[in-house]
């Protein structure tokens, strides 16, 4: 039923393709993305050259997307960058949804927690997401787990609000009332009766969070506050390429196109999921 929707088809298949690229990166004519060769600096796209491996052997290599100012192969770095983006996007979305669901269920079902929890969430929402992420990364040293957490934190309130609103309407349903009357324990009502009914909207919301997380990771890297610059992420490649943007714009454009395409694919997938799974929401926006 999902696959009948054109947005799901287009977004989903683009994403599958990118997933394949991420997994198969080492076998797609790439070299080690951190390998640099002073002899092949600043090559234009398509230039043939050679690159020295760590073992000291010189290999013939065509720089499909050119090389950066350290002599690293941009094509390899962009392909390996797919891994970082997808991992960060999916992991941040899962993390935000997980904690958002916990908080939302608690706020919606345990009434005395509601006020306290929602004021905390309002507080987080008052700070723009990018600033929270920057602040969290600034507190710790940036590595993959801290970047994922930093991106997930500002998204938790949005999930919490969604889940809370759903719980508040579901808990009035007759089947929940029946479960309460039968003396079902609270925990079982929350996870067995209410949670399954929130899955569809959560899937839609999670997809949008994934797109936003990929974007935010690239922004952090680009600003120089994300993952260390030797790790091939699209943001890092662009940050490195911007110094020589006037002479060699391709170092900015190739990762930029990949980034825009990925975010677009995830957003289109989200729109498709929303239209098929959550017709009420589709009418609203």
């Amino acid at each position, binding site marked *: 039923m999902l696959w009948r929707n054109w947005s799901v088809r287009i977004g989903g298949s683009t994403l599958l393709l990118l997933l394949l690229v991420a997994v198969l990166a080492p076998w797609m004519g790439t070299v080690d993305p951190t390998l640099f060769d002073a002899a092949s600096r600043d090559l234009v796209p398509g230039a043939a050259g050679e690159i020295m491996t760590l073992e000291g052997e010189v290999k013939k290599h065509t720089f499909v997307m050119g090389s950066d100012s350290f002599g690293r192969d941009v094509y390899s770095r962009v392909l390996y960058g797919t891994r970082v983006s997808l991992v960060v996007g999916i992991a941040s979305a899962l993390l935000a949804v997980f904690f958002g669901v916990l908080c939302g269920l608690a706020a919606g079902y345990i009434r005395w927690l509601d006020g306290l929890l929602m004021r905390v969430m309002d507080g987080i929402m*008052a*700070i*723009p*997401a*990018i*600033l929270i992420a*920057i*602040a969290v*990364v*600034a507190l710790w040293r940036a590595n993959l787990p801290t970047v994922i957490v930093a991106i997930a934190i500002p998204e938790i309130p949005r999930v919490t609000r969604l889940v809370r609103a759903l719980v508040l309407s579901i808990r009035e349903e007759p089947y929940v009332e029946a479960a309460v009357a039968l003396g079902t324990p609270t925990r079982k009502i929350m996870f067995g009766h209410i949670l399954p009914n929130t899955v569809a909207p959560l899937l839609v919301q999670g997809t949008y969070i994934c*797109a936003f997380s990929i*974007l935010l990771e*690239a*922004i952090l890297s*680009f*600003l*120089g*506050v994300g993952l260390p610059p030797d790790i091939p992420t699209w943001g890092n490649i*662009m940050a490195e390429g*911007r110094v020589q*943007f*006037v002479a060699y*714009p391709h170092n*900015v*454009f190739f990762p*930029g*196109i990949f*980034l*825009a395409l990925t*975010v*677009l694919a995830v*957003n*289109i997938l989200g*729109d498709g999921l929303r239209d098929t799974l959550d017709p009420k929401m589709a009418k*609203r*926006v």
Partner: protein
Amino acid sequence: MAGDAATAEQIESIRAGLGLDRPLVVQFGIWLGKVASGDLGESFYYRIKVATLIGQRLEPTLALATLTILIAVFVSIPLGVAAAWRFGGWFDRFLMGFSVMGFSVPVFVLAYMLIWLVSLKLGWFPVQGYRRLADGFLPFLHHLILPAITLSVIYIALIARVTRASVLEALGEDYIRTARAKGLPELRVLVRHALANAAVPIATVIGIGIAILIGGVVVTESVYAIPGLGRLTVDAVLARDFPTIQGVILFFSFIYVLVNLLIDLSYVFLDPRIRY
């Protein structure tokens, strides 16, 4: 800060001087107490008051944000109304496609595309930099217009989408049919009857969009080398200048909450049915 050749005692005395030797909770408590009395502390890096620092960097950011909002509102609302007017038509579909693109193309990718096309190839605008308003209005605008266009795209996407949805809803109401039956010109029906009744959600989304705008300011200022608050935030993080980071984040959040409060209050004017 102490240099590479600092001894352990020197480092220790600097840490004590900055108050970094105390537990984090105590440091935060002291900071909070000072903020309550209007003191944001002193920057570790620039060695001046954070409040002074924010004051120095305020003009470029304020100018960029104002111009962006102006462009966004004047472009997006007519687009949204037009799309709702011809719902399902080619313009509507084009606008929806554009808005998904606007959400997906990152601000810095768009910035470099525009720099490459408009500044490098066509040479219409300077590549980077900022002129103060005191240096004359035209150079000021000339340097600011490309960053503002860049930043306004995602904002236009957001506002146009909501304008379309809420005007569409208003167009289904009975009073629209009445207005048309009275023989009012279509433009007057759209603006005076449909748009006026759709104003509250549009105002709300402009307020929520301030969060996106602040995030965009941080990135745009870095790309276009504008010495504003966004650039200051990034520099402060890179220098691990915590009082400045805290001060700027507090300031941005304050602005965000303040703007949203003002918009909430403006509902009274936008919709006379609402009273506080």
